[in-house]
């Protein structure tokens, strides 16, 4: 259950951004989680609910944007269907994960004076 330690890191990030901008409170945050990031969105939400109490995020809803895995050919860029062999059907080069491993804090809605 590494989701708990990632949520702790998230809360630290949000707090330092909020402090930097002298925010009074945080209204909402948006996080991107890739399908192949190794982070389970449901566990992540549960961990967030537990840990946000008595932090700047106490009243902040978290929106999770899940990012599907996108494999493309390393050489020619052709998309490669997930679930299949990770080689380009056209040129046989190995695939590269173009997106889908994100664990990113994208946006914070904060209340500023």
């Amino acid at each position, binding site marked *: *259950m*590494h989701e708990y*330690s*990632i949520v702790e*890191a*998230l809360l*630290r*990030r949000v707090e330092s*951004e909020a402090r930097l*901008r002298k925010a*009074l409170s945080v*209204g*909402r945050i948006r*996080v991107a989680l890739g399908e*192949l*990031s*190794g*982070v389970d969105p449901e566990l992540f939400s549960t961990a967030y609910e537990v840990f946000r109490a008595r932090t700047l995020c106490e009243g902040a809803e978290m929106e999770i944007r899940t990012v599907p895995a996108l*494999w493309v050919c*390393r050489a020619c860029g052709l998309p490669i269907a997930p*679930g*299949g*062999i*990770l*080689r380009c059907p056209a040129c046989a080069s*190995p*695939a*590269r*994960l173009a997106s889908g491993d994100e*664990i*990113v*804090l*994208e*946006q*914070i*809605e*904060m*209340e*500023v*004076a």
Partner: protein
Amino acid sequence: MCDTCGCGDSDLVPVEVQERILSGNERTARHNREHFEEAGVFAINLMGSPGSGKTAVLEATARARSGLRIGAMSGDLATDNDAERLRRAGIPDAVSITTGSACHLDAELVHKALHHMEWRDLDLLFVENVGNLVCPAVYDLGQAENVVVLSVTEGEDKPIKYPVMFRKADLVLITKTDLLPHLPGMSLEALLDNLARVMPEPRTIVMSTLTGEGLESWIAWLEERHQARAVLTPAHGHHHHHLPG
């Protein structure tokens, strides 16, 4: 201030951040990696399920007497057992990282453990992660390569069940092959096919620490990778000269 009417109410403003949540861990991992590279130490993050044979692989590696100087740190929830096994097998520099309830190692734990061992003169440093196919894959430790140990008793579908772990593997050691005659339903071919669906460039070594199968290829892989690193860091030497002043 609310600009529209001057009422003095505060505003909710969206701020774009686009920041990797684990950037703190990534920073420490980079720091570890710099340490390893400047000292010419080839660091391996060894991962796999509990009971897959991670410690047995390290014991066999130590007993192979390759001439490589090997050190290890073992992540363990509660005990010093793994490090103790490694010291008995001939890795004097084996330390435990007791993680408590944590299911994975992170770069900071590795960095702290480095302070408790003589690692600069090693050729290979194994970081034996906590037995787990999920959490350890998320954390960069500063290693040069990820090696995943997968025993044949775990079944051929493990790679597609745990794609995050296997996607990050530079090498998969398929262990306990001496048990294959007792596993009629287990097909190595199907296992390799599944690996090719989660690893763009699957590299595997089929091995048994009991019969010694594959051990030679494994040692050769380690030697080759260590050599390649040593060439990358020409300043590497075991005598460190410091300029006066």
